């Protein structure tokens, strides 16, 4: 196994202040299960899971509480023993309401796990896919796309390369970093399972060069694999963790517009997802907890916490010794793509990689000015778009023209708005216009 710089580098990108030193030396801490868990049924992309327990039911750790509800969906399991107190609605980080199951946790440590599949090389690939699906594994990098679907490409899309995404390019977040440090061996087995399922030949591990200890840990774990595997060290910049950009950096292939990684023979899995795959197959554990970075200048003691899903941000912050100064902004996820939330009572889920609490002096509210056509957003855009022109079309409500100049290719990474000297809310413009286009397309489909 060799460690080499990534052979390609996408155009664009930015260098935000990383602020990872707040938590990048904090080992993973398993928290005590809180008294109440509010487990959302929508922790993934696609249809929310269908609650399959009733108020008063007793559940064990790993019990199915929400059934997969459609092809693009994932089941949800109880993260703890306890009693179902309510089947209700909860607010998600994005502000939407979704069904949720409130569990009053008990001290019992009874579990309801699945049968471990130790000899996974001897079982059918579909059995493994089913297992990963039944364990509720979804992409933990942020999108929450069901992993079972990702691992089931159609037969005309052969996959030759698997990329383990350990870039963690979002400022402040260090959960993937710690997972790589502490669970490199398990990630390796998870990667081999993915490789086996997809019949891929090569594995590339993509890590930014600001995480040298994680690179070493992964080197050690993968040391005895002689061919087909390499660590690709990415220069530290944002958005190295973006799927399309990472595939390009590692393989030089560009995912075609509107296409998927499988169109260029690649599957990208986040390192935490890979760990979840290991747990699902080898231990039979459904996905019920993850490592979450609680950080930001307002937090007394930043930490990387292993917390069951459904824990409220408030509980997590209390574990971290509370706040040392008033938080002005609470971000679910990182500051570049995360959601600013209005309440600390929002529960964590499969895609909650971190909660960043920023004090007043780390947040700024801007007034949008006219575009001065400086072109900095053009240089920053990793997709080759012209954000300045797009946002001017969108301001004029000319969505058609915006669509003509590749509006829908925007990945909402925020690089453009990050550099804009006129403080234009460029990503907000793109999101609004993309939503309009999606609604129009859906309406057109409904009519046809």
């Amino acid at each position, binding site marked *: 196994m060799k460690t080499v710089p990534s052979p390609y580098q996408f155009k664009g990108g930015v260098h935000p202040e990383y602020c990872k030193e707040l938590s990048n030396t904090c080992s993973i801490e398993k928290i005590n299960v809180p008294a109440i868990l509010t487990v959302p049924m929508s922790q993934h992309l696609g249809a929310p899971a269908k609650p399959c327990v009733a108020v008063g039911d007793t559940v064990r750790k790993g019990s199915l509480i929400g059934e997969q509800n459609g092809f693009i969906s994932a089941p949800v399991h109880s993260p703890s023993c306890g009693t179902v107190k309510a089947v209700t609605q909860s607010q998600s980080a994005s502000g939407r309401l979704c069904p949720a199951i409130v569990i009053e946790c008990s001290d019992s440590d009874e579990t309801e796990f699945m049968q471990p599949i130790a000899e996974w090389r001897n079982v059918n690939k579909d059995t493994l896919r089913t297992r990963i699906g039944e364990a509720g594994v979804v992409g933990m990098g942020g999108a929450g796309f069901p992993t079972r679907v990702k691992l089931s490409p159609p037969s005309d899309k052969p996959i030759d390369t698997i990329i383990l995404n350990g870039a963690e390019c979002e400022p402040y977040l260090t959960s993937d970093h710690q997972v790589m440090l502490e669970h490199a061996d398990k990630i390796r087995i998870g990667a081999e399972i993915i490789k086996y399922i997809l019949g891929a030949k090569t594995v590339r591990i993509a890590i930014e060069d600001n995480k040298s200890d994680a690179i070493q840990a992964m080197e050690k774990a993968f040391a005895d694999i002689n061919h087909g595997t390499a660590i690709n060290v990415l220069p530290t910049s944002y958005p190295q963790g973006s799927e399309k*950009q990472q595939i390009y950096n590692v393989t030089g292939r560009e995912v075609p*517009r509107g296409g998927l990684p499988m169109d260029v023979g690649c599957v990208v899995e986040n390192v935490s997802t890979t760990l979840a795959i290991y747990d699902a197959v080898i231990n039979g554990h459904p996905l019920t907890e993850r490592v979450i970075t609680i950080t930001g200048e307002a937090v007394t003691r930043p930490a990387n916490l292993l917390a069951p899903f459904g824990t409220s941000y408030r509980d997590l912050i209390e574990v971290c010794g509370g706040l040392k100064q008033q938080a002005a902004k609470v971000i679910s996820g990182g500051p*570049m793509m*995360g959601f600013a939330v*209005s309440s600390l009572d929002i529960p964590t889920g499969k895609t909650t990689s971190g909660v*960043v609490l920023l004090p007043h002096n780390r947040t700024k509210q801007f007034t949008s000015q006219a575009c001065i056509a400086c072109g900095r957003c053009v240089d920053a855009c990793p997709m080759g778009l012209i954000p300045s022109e797009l946002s001017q079309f969108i301001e004029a409500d000319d969505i058609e023209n915006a669509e003509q100049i590749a509006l829908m290719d925007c990945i909402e990474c925020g690089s453009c708005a990050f550099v804009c000297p006129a403080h234009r809310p460029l990503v907000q413009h793109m999101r609004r216009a993309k939503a309009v286009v999606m609604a129009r397309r859906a309406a057109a489909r409904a009519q046809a």
Partner: protein
Amino acid sequence: MKQEIATEKYIVSSSPHAHIGSSVERIMLDVLIALTPAFAAACYFFGLSALRLTAVCVTSCVLTEWVCRVMMRRANTISDLSAAVTGLLLALNLPPSLPTWMAVTGSIFAIGISKQIFGGLGYNVFNPALAARAFMLISFTGAMTTWSGAEWATTLARGAVDATSNATPLGLIKEALKAGAVLPEFGANTVMRLFTGNINGCIGETSALALLIGAGWLLYRKVITWHIPFAYIATVLIYASIAYIVNPQTAVMPHIHLLSGGLIIGAFFMATDMVTSPVTKRGMLIFGVGCGLVTMVIRTVKTGAYPEGVSFAILFMNAITPLINRGCRNKVFGTKS
């Protein structure tokens, strides 16, 4: 002091929640800083007239901006410093002897007509300072081409270039071309004067040295990139070299073109105006080459009225910037190049 976690008043806004810290004001401040050496050189070589013109132009530009915004009932924008930049650039592009009332008229045109009527900063098609200069060149042709401002400065310059007139170097060349006469010789001494700025011309355009120091600041602060100035100057040099090689009798050496007629201030400070130049690097290169070609055509056409050409070249390219932007979009990721 431990804060109460329960406070539930958080700022909710769309991502990203981080910003690089740049601002329009900071960009304009950098341009002002970058123009300081040229302003200092102008004061040194042209004395009080440089100070007078600069004070008049900056004050009237900022005042015009303020009045326009009040009349338009829009948020006031004088604090973004763009009006001050326009005023300073306009002043540096005026001959030293220009009457004050003309400078005021030009400033009102720059901000009122070529900027605020279009909607203010960001919406203007033409570089306001250059549009005003073109307007003044047409309206006050005599005063705008009289180069006898600061007495001591012209005295210094006299004898080196020309003992009988106060024309600029390019003005002399144009006259000679029109008359079919032998072109004036430019010795090493003159070239040095062109470089330092001790020569006739607009107050801020003569000192290549001072302008290059400022250009260095703009590049260092990443307010501009090399693309437009490089393409512009390279085109001028290549064009001038070819013209000189083809017929040395009717062409001057390329470095005279480089150092005179406001090319340096034009290439680094005027053509790079963000609002009126393309947004992509490829577009910037095309823009720069276009500026260079138009400049040289104006300079070398015998029958042409204007000896220098930088202003009109940039204004012409300003006009076609939207077309360049449309034709020079970047390759979208995932498309075939």
